[in-house]
């Protein structure tokens, strides 16, 4: 086997510049958009806490302790306990895992399926486009939560069904945005070239057009993340989302939290703060990402 030092040498600086370019871009983002960087840090902390919930939580989130029901925040229970004596902080930490799973799954599937439909709609145009858009319009005239309610009542509660219930109403919204940016891409010469080369529709849509709606796609993805977490919390609060005893932030605010609000306000305060902080961070990051990726889009 011949050793070819020239190749190995060529390889190393290539990798190095790429990582350093990423690093430089990250640093640049942090310097120019401090609010976005703060958001990104909180998001990262959330993900890490969610992934390592077993390590960070001091208690089993399901373990009941009837000796310590509705205990005030103390050294043993930093954020107090709930009506079953379960540690609120541990439940919030494990709830972060639920929120991240639901958030990322919904945002990813919602934005991706929506983008594919939107791009395909723009690519085919004509009657297909008209038909798809009318169907999407019908879905859009339902409020998000009402559509989600319908899906949950068809399929029942549980985490996968909640993900589906939140994803379905996101698809038409994503398709609308993707379609509007794909309309101009369709007129680009390279799409004509691909068509002239005899590529199949699927290949043109997936390989040639989809990568070019990446900026609106990423923007939608981050916007959906926060919305999905909020929706999951609302559905769980209504008793239509994640089922007990799974730790979820919205679920923690249900029932006893309101009932014992005066004696044990910590039960109502902290899970809500967790929701707000997580969504706040995703929104901050998403806003800055939007400004960075697409200066033409206005900061709302």
């Amino acid at each position, binding site marked *: 086997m011949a050793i070819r030092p020239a190749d190995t040498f060529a390889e190393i600086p290539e990798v190095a510049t790429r990582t350093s370019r990423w690093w430089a871009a990250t640093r640049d983002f942090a310097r120019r958009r401090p609010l976005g960087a703060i958001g990104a840090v909180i998001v990262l902390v959330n993900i890490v806490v969610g992934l390592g919930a077993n390590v960070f939580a001091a208690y089993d989130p399901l373990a009941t302790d009837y000796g310590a029901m509705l205990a005030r925040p103390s050294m043993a229970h930093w954020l107090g306990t709930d009506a079953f004596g379960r540690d609120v902080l541990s439940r919030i930490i494990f709830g972060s895992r639920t929120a991240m799973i639901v958030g990322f799954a919904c945002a990813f599937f919602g934005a991706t399926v929506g983008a594919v439909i939107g791009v395909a709609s723009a690519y085919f145009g004509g009657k297909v486009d008209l038909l798809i858009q009318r169907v999407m319009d*019908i879905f859009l*005239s339902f*409020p998000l939560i009402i559509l989600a309610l319908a899906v949950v009542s068809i399929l029942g509660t549980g985490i996968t069904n909640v993900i589906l219930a939140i994803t379905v109403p996101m698809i038409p919204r994503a398709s609308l945005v993707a379609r509007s940016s794909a309309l101009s891409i369709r007129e680009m010469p390279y799409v004509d070239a691909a068509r002239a080369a005899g590529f199949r529709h699927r290949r043109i849509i997936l390989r040639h057009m989809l990568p070019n709606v990446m900026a609106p796609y990423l923007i939608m993805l981050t916007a959906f993340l926060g919305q999905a977490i*909020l929706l999951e919390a*609302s559905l769980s609060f*209504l008793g239509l989302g994640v089922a007990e005893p799974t730790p979820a932030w919205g679920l923690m*605010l249900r029932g006893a939290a309101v009932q014992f609000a005066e004696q044990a306000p910590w039960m109502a305060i902290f899970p*809500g703060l967790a929701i707000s902080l*997580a969504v706040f961070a995703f929104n901050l990051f998403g806003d800055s990402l939007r400004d960075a990726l697409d200066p033409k889009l206005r900061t709302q």
Partner: protein
Amino acid sequence: MIRYIIKRVVLMIPTLLSVAVLVFFLMRVVPGDIVELRFAGESAFAQKEQLDIERARLGLDQPIWTQFLTWMGGILRFDFGTSMWTGATILEEIRLRFALSLQLAIMATAIAVLLAIPLGVLAAVKQDTWVDYVVRIFSIAGLATPSFWLGIMFILLLLIVFHWLPPMVYTPFWQNPIQNLAQLIWPALAVGYRYSAVATRMTRSALLEVLREDYIRTARSKGLWQQLILSRHALKNALLPVLTVIALEFAFLMGALVVTEQVFNLNGLGLLFVESVAHRDYTLTQALVLLVAFVFIFVNFMVDLAYAWIDPRIRFR
């Protein structure tokens, strides 16, 4: 203009029809029907004949197309039927609750607009100063805070600080306005804050865009004062997207109410909707979904008409 209005009203029909078809068949796909649910509570082993009698009474034994056409025929005569669960007429079930939810929605919108436009203008005029940052953080926080949690916090605050709870029994506005407002202002604030956040961001960005226009520079160079430029030249042109966003969010408002009404124990449309879906009360759910879709379409229609009033360049065809 008249022709445009007629055209828009006619165009509402296919949309509403497809919403009706969708909800009708969606409800039939949902496993479990109202008869099973009702008898499941009473005895574990209800007679099959008994279930069939009840189904026949509700007209559920007929072919699905007959059911659909009967329902559609009723709607044409403004007869939405009776609730399958309570037996009361749909119009009666909805009337009082609609008044409550509508009042709440209007109050929340008013709060949102009263907060959003001054804050948005302030942020745009003082762009990139601390004022701008404070307003932006306030509005991003509004988007992030679940309105139902904010509602719980309001109740908690009132309880702990003032030892006072808002009245839990609904009084119509014309009977006792003070009692009515004392109850509804809290949920309206909770929902309105989120609502205002969206509108504030839109006001700020739209105004920033307008302030860069040539005619604003012209107005400045004429020596007009800032206030007049803002109120007469800039704001009026910036209001268009703000209005759009407010109308779009009106639909979300109905959704937010579903959850917030629960917190304040308000017997509004939101609660009715959740219950009717849980009971598989087909007739009531269908009527409610149609109502929500109609409100959404109607609000968008009104906004389109308002465009012409705000921006005379827009012509309707």
